[in-house]
């Protein structure tokens, strides 16, 4: 940006006019490039703000009618104009946390396998395969979930868990079909494992080799190297990755609505039907005729947006602190 000014000073006078023209074109070109680039950034920021605005705007009739009581009320009766998201919030938290509980250890183990154990050739094959799992569209995962996974879960896994761990209330009596919070959690697990696994693999690969070799030289076994060196230095990054996975699970609509069975009561058992905020929106929005029904679904979306943004910001904060600590070292 600075060079044309000083360059033109030393040019011979006879080329002054064309140099002048060139400089003018370049000044316009630079300005134009800066302008459209800045405009593109502005567009991205405005879009994000508009997403928030539209959610609040669409939800405003429901907000003014139900207020914050919407969050705790569990009645959802479109015919009577009564709406409350209590059971949906419960269903969202229940299914997502269970998915995270199941998925995060598996994903971290995969990350460890890919970074510490797998030979280079195997890693080159397994890594893309795991990431391919993330590329499967959720609608196909949900379709597979109803027709293949749900019957299997219903006939095999649910009775087994009920018989062995039935004293825990979350493993209650299996219901008539496989559509349950449990099946939805399994689908969500399949979705979040590749996300957490690929981030944690990258984190583990970034741990300095010398530290690990040093621990090995002191006689540490492989597991002790992982526990003593790899995990402590990447812990917060792994937590951030899990939060990103959690955010994905909380917001997944299509696959969940296909397999969760659209129940609207709070039940302690995983094997009962339930529903989530996102699933309810996907399921009922096309048929929502009254303004209040639509607004209530928007309200569900707003809750989801707030939870999603918070978990994302938290993950970013942790991730940045982690990057900062890495940089200092």
């Amino acid at each position, binding site marked *: 940006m600075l060079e044309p000014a000083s360059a033109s000073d030393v040019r011979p006078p006879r080329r002054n006019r064309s140099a002048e023209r060139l400089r003018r074109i370049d000044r316009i070109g630079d300005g134009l490039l800066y302008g459209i680039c800045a405009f593109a950034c502005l567009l991205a920021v405005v879009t994000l703000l508009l997403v928030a605005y539209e959610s609040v705007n669409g939800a405003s009739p429901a907000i003014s009618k139900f207020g914050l009581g919407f969050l705790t009320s569990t009645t959802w009766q479109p015919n009577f104009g009564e709406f409350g998201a209590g059971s949906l919030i419960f269903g969202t938290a229940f299914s997502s946390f269970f998915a995270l509980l199941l998925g995060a250890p598996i994903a971290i183990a995969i990350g460890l396998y890919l970074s510490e154990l797998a030979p280079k050739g195997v890693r080159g094959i397994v890594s893309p395969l795991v990431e391919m799992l993330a590329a499967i569209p959720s609608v196909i995962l949900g379709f597979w979930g109803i027709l293949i996974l749900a019957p299997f879960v219903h006939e095999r896994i649910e009775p087994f868990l009920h018989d062995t761990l039935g004293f825990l209330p979350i493993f209650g009596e299996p219901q008539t079909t496989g559509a349950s919070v449990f099946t939805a959690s399994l689908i969500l697990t399949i979705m979040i494992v590749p996300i957490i696994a690929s981030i944690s693999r990258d984190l583990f690969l970034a741990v300095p080799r010398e530290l690990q070799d040093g621990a090995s030289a002191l006689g*540490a076994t492989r597991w002790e190297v992982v526990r003593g060196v790899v995990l402590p230095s990447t812990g917060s990054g792994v937590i951030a990755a899990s939060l990103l996975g959690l955010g994905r699970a909380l*917001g997944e609509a299509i696959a969940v609505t296909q397999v969760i069975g659209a129940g609207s009561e709070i039940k302690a058992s995983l094997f009962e039907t339930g529903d989530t905020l996102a699933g309810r929106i996907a399921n009922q*929005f096309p048929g929502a005729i009254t303004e209040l029904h639509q607004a209530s679904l928007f309200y569900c979306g707003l809750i989801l947006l707030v939870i999603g943004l918070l978990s994302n910001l938290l993950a970013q904060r942790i991730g940045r602190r982690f990057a900062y600590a890495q940089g200092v070292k």
Partner: protein
Amino acid sequence: MAEIGAAGFDPTTPLSASGNLRRRQFVSRFTEAGATGAAVLAIAVLAILIYTVAARGAGALSWEFLTTGEPTGIGPALIGTAVIVAIATAIATPVGVLIAIYLTEFAGPRATRFMKATLDLTNGLPSIIIGLFIFGLLIKPLEKQMAFAASVALAVIQLPLIARGSLEVLLLVPGNLREASDALGVSRWRSVIGVILPSALGGIVTATVLAVARAAGETAPLIFASSVFDATKVGLNPFEALPNIPVTIFFLSEEGNPTGFTRAWGASLVLIAVILFASLGARALLSRNRERTSR
């Protein structure tokens, strides 16, 4: 590795015989087996998924299935998806690349951090929220569904992917290329167009293809923007609702009709094949680029 190091290099082998070492090695082996098992589990799930879709969808596939409309085929839906995703990509790619250029060429550290946070937040938005957004922004005021609105929604989903991907490759452009261009007195916009973008082109294409693969399977925004359509004939007008593959699969799966299921498996197979080929192709392109830049 650790075991060899501990046992092989110590002539007095104080570590080898104690029961404690045996326990430690057992724990280590056990966790190694667990980690390997987790990887095998993930691949098994992928294999089962793809196998089921392929086995059940293959029966539905035929030339007629791919070219005719409802009730025998999914031709119009294929074309509709192509139109919607093409418009979305045409919107998202320039914006995404321009954001990446802004971040590498103009922005200071604070603006960079702010924009990266914005992109990450946009990337973290659940697609159902983007559907609600597009409903409030376009569908409700205009009182009709249209494919263009679906494209805008998909563009919002693609934007962070393309911007982040382009940013990564723009940062990889060798510094000496930039410096050489500056040393010749080339102005910023000329060196961006003539030097920086061409050397990052491969990576930008990769990011775009990955974003296309992601957008092609998104269902939630399309339920709001393009779900009431006539699937019997091909439509190309983006200002009408167009039939598309994800919504077709979604509705067929909710109907509970066996012949519908067969069609849905067939449509799923086509969609998965397109997406996996696109992401594999993008990956191959990426590794070729990596080799070239690292050399």
